[in-house]
C-alpha cells in the first residue's frame, strides 16, 4: 500500500510538473512533505524538502532544454527515506536522509532521459492528432493532447516506488550493520545543507547574488550567535 501511495503521488507530481498547472506542487519543498504526509511521516518530509528545493532550485524547463527531473528524484528520496526510517524505528534522521539522497539522487538524472523519450513519444500523439483532424474528427484529435499526460504519470509511478524500495532495503541494512555511521552521516547532511544553499544562490544568476548570499549568511550567523550568546 505504501508503494502505491508513492506511485500515485510521484505520477501526479510528474503531470503537474510540466503537463498541467505548474503550481509548484511538484517542487521538492512541497513534494517531499506531501510524500511524507501520504506515508504518515510529515516531519520526515519537512526535513528533506528545504535542502532538496535549494539544491534543485535551478532545475527549470526553459524552452526546449531539459533539467534533471527533480520531482522524480524527490519522490524516490522522500518515499525511500520515510520507509527506511520506519523500518529502523527512528523516523527520517539526517543519516537516513544522506543515504537516501546518495541512493536515489541519480534518479533525477535518469528522469531527464525519460523526459526526452516522452517528448519523442508525444511526436506520435501530435501526428495522430493531425491524422484524426484530416479524417474529420476534431474532438478526437484534440483529446490526443490529454493522452500526453499518461506517459509521464506511468514512468514516474513505476520508477519512484522502485527506487524508494531500493532505499528502504539498503539504508536500514547499512545503518543496522554500521551503527557508528549515524553520527558522521549527520555531518554529511549538514554539509549538504550548505551546498544546497550555495546551489540555490547560484541558480538566481544575479550579478550581486554571491555578495548578497555571503552578506545575508554572515548577518544570520551573527544574529544567531548574539541571540544564542545572550541566552
Amino acid at each position, binding site marked *: 500500500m505504501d508503494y502505491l501511495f508513492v506511485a500515485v503521488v510521484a505520477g501526479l507530481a510528474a503531470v503537474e510538473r510540466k503537463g498541467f498547472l505548474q503550481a509548484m506542487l511538484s517542487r521538492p519543498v*512541497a513534494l517531499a512533505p506531501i510524500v511524507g504526509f501520504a506515508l504518515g511521516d510529515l516531519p520526515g518530509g519537512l526535513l528533506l524538502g528545504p535542502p532538496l528545493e535549494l539544491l534543485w532550485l535551478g532545475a527549470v524547463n526553459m524552452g526546449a532544454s531539459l533539467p534533471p527531473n527533480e520531482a522524480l528524484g524527490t519522490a524516490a528520496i522522500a518515499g525511500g527515506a520515510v520507509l527506511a526510517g520506519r523500518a529502523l524505528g527512528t523516523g527520517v534522521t539526517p543519516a537516513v536522509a544522506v543515504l537516501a539522497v546518495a541512493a536515489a539522487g541519480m534518479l533525477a538524472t535518469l528522469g531527464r532521459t525519460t523526459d526526452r523519450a516522452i517528448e519523442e513519444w508525444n511526436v506520435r500523439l501530435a501526428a495522430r492528432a493531425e491524422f484524426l483532424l484530416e479524417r474529420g474528427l476534431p474532438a478526437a484529435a484534440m483529446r490526443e493532447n490529454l493522452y500526453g499526460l499518461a506517459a509521464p504519470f506511468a514512468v514516474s509511478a513505476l520508477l519512484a516506488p522502485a527506487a524508494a524500495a531500493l532505499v528502504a532495503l539498503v539504508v536500514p541494512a547499512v545503518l543496522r550493520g554500521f551503527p557508528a555511521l549515524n553520527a558522521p552521516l549527520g555531518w554529511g547532511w549538514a554539509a549538504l545543507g550548505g551546498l544546497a544553499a550555495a546551489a540555490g544562490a547560484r541558480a538566481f544568476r544575479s550579478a550581486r547574488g554571491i555578495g548578497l548570499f555571503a552578506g545575508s549568511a554572515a548577518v544570520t550567523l551573527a544574529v544567531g550567535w548574539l541571540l544564542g550568546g545572550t541566552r
Partner: protein
Amino acid sequence: MNVPPVTLRRVFWRCLFLQAAWNRRGMQNLGFAYAIDPALRRLYADPGKRREALRRHLATFNCHPYTAAAIVGGAIHHEERVAAGQEPPGAPLAFKQVLQGPLAAVGDGFFWSGLRPFFGALAAVGTLALGWPALVAALLVYNAFHLWLRWTLFRAGYRSGDEVVVRLAALSLPAWASRLRDGGAVLCGVAAGAGALSAAGRISPWAGVLAIGAAVAGIVALGLRARLLPTAYAVMAVGSAVGAATQVFRGGR
C-alpha cells in the same frame, strides 16, 4: 461574433494543459490547438472552417506556459476578426509567430528565473523556521499571484490583441525579476546561516563550520561549472568523512 465569457473561461482552463503533449516537432502545438478549440467551435459553425482553423493552430508553437495565456487570448481576438471577414486567415498565425519568442523570454526571465525560485527559497526558509504553515502560506501566495497574472494576461490578450505587448511592458516584469533574484540570493544566504547554526547546536560548533565551508566550496565549484549532483555526492562524502575523523579524534583523546 464575440466568443461568450463562459467559453473564454473554458479556454483559460484548457490553457493549463498547454504542455500536456509537449513534443520535439511541434512543441506546444497540440496544447495550443486543444486550448483554443472551444472558441473555434463557437466561431466556426461550418466543420470545414473549424478544421481549417484548428490546422493553422497545429503549427509549431513554443512559449512560456504562463505568458502563453496572453497569446491564446490574442489569437481568439484575431480569430473573431477572421470569422467576421475583417482579417485574412493568416493573421492569428502571424500574431503567434511574432509574440511567442518575446513572451517566452519575459516568462522565463520573470517566472522561471525570478518568481518561482524566489518562492521556492522563501518556502524552504519558512519551512526551516516555522514548519508546514509557512510552506502552505508560501504556496498559496505564489499560486494566487501566478493564476491571477495568467488570467490577467489572457484577458488582456483577448481584449487588446497586438496591444497586449504594451500592457505587458507596463508591468515592468524584467525589473521585478531582478529584484526577486536579489531577494532569492538573500534567502539562500539566510538558509546557509541558519543551517550552519542548527548544525552547530545539534552536532558541534565544527559541524557549523563544515556547513559554511560546504557553502563556500559549492559557490566556487558551481562557479567553475562543476556538475551539481556529483558535487553533492562529493560534499556528502567529505562531510561524513570529516564527521568520522572528528569522532575518531575525540575517541582517541
